[in-house]
């Protein structure tokens, strides 16, 4: 790779985040100084006073809840798609595209009116809606993993006396464990990162880290506190993704090559 290309690529990817990193450690930064005149943690103190810790905990809980709902639903759908167990794969794929195509704010806006009438708690509504947004990601990730894994595994486990449940939990799931973790991570990111659905359906009662950041960024004028909130919201997902990427890379370098999907016996597939 040419050095110029590498430098330009890293500049494009990293520079937009640089102001947050610098401002989060700035105590005083007058214009037009290139660097802060004084470094400190005043931004973090202000962010903490605004409720950053609780907001982060709420985001964590929301991310985990969305992952807990969307991952099993996505894995079930991914298994059917990956092993071609449905006679209408195009319909399943088309329905999975719906949450990606329809703007989440539009669905949330309509659902908010319904949920007010039904009386469903805001937290449940937010988790439900974000889980639906996350299902396409978990389903496609799982489908890819199942397509690489032969359904013979499950058949052989059954032939050796395992119940259907045992065959799935003890044989099939461990074989696609890595991809399921990636699917769960994607669902977690949907819950952690969301702003508009949480604000709309949550009615401002569910103050997650992005909701707190949005309120501060739009009007506080305290750049150090805003940057601290942004950095605190940024680090957990980036760290999770980085660790997952490094672990997957490490496991791929030691694991045997994946089975090609062509190894799936014809009788195990359903016709399109």
């Amino acid at each position: 790779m040419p050095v110029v290309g590498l430098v330009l690529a890293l500049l494009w990817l990293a520079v937009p985040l640089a102001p947050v990193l610098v401002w989060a450690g700035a105590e005083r930064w007058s214009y037009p100084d290139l660097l802060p005149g004084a470094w400190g943690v005043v931004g973090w103190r202000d962010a903490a006073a605004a409720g950053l810790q609780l907001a982060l905990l709420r985001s964590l809980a929301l991310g985990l809840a969305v992952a807990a709902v969307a991952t099993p639903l996505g894995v079930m759908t991914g298994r059917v798609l990956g092993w071609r167990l449905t006679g209408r794969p195009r319909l399943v794929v088309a329905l999975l595209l719906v949450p990606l195509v329809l703007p989440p704010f539009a669905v949330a806006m309509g659902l908010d009116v319904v949920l007010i009438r039904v009386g469903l708690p805001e937290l449940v509504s937010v988790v439900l809606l974000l889980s639906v947004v996350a299902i396409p990601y978990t389903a496609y990730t799982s489908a890819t993993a199942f397509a690489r894994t032969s359904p013979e595994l499950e058949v052989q486990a059954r032939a050796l006396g395992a119940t259907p449940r045992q065959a799935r939990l003890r044989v099939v799931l461990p074989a696609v464990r890595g991809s399921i973790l990636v699917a769960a991570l994607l669902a977690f990111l949907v819950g952690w990162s969301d702003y508009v659905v949480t604000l709309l359906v949550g009615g401002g009662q569910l103050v997650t880290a992005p909701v707190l950041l949005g309120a501060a960024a739009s009007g506080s004028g305290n750049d150090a506190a805003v940057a601290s909130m942004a950095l605190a919201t940024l680090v957990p997902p980036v760290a999770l993704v980085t660790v997952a990427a490094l672990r997957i890379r490490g496991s791929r370098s030691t694991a045997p090559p994946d089975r090609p999907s062509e190894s799936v016996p014809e009788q195990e597939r359903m016709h399109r």
Partner: protein
Amino acid sequence: MTSRRVSGAAPGIVAITVVAGTGMAAVVATSVGLMPLYGEPAPSLDGWRSAAPDLVAGIGESLLIAVPATVLAALVGFLLATLMLGGGRAASVVRLACLAVLAVPHLVGATSVSLLLGDGGAAARLAAPAGVDDWPALVGGPWPVATVLELAWKESAFVALVVLAAVAPGHRMRMQVAAGLGARPVQRVLRVLLPTAAPAVGAASLVTLVYAIGSYEVAWLLGRAVPEPLPVLAFRLFGSIELTDRPAAAAAAVTGSVLALCIAVPALATLPRLRALSTGGAP
């Protein structure tokens, strides 16, 4: 056994159908007065009428943001993927950086871009010693420059990873064969790499375009006050203290959804033709 296997897809699909279907049906009903927050339903197009001028401007603003952001993301994403296809440690570093950017919430990206490109931001500080005293209004100015750049920045990482995943298997072999057949480097890019990457670039660009049309927080934080893109318009009207603004908010939400569908459905029909480019055969 087969029927039980097939039913495995059902819970996820049912959840999507029920939630998205109910949400869209309710927002359409709200826009025509059939689901008022209080009072009796009364069919009316008042919401659409009152929002009409803003809807037209909102469609224009949404496209003014989404189209350039998508084109820029596709271009940069393709270049990033090309760099990563070279392999080696540097490619791993760029790939990891793309993954990290992908994990950044858009709101965090928008916050940082406002500190970068806004008045008194990092870019203005860097430009000041060069005599640039009048920093252009890139945030909240007459053109949605910061909004476009933020969306393009984050989505370029997405495009790059999608293209990399689609093109990397067999890439080296294809390039070697093309070189063996006498193709020059430019010909290899234009006649081998580009057609191979076209379906992935097309699919990722479509996702980016549809996402950008429905994206709220970036345009809300970095965009100008007037005209508002459809999500910002819908959200503002939805939060209005005037309950009569609810149907207008729903009309803006329906318009945004229809706009996304009008782009996505024909584009999805075109994607198999793009795929045929990479295989050289029928879709």
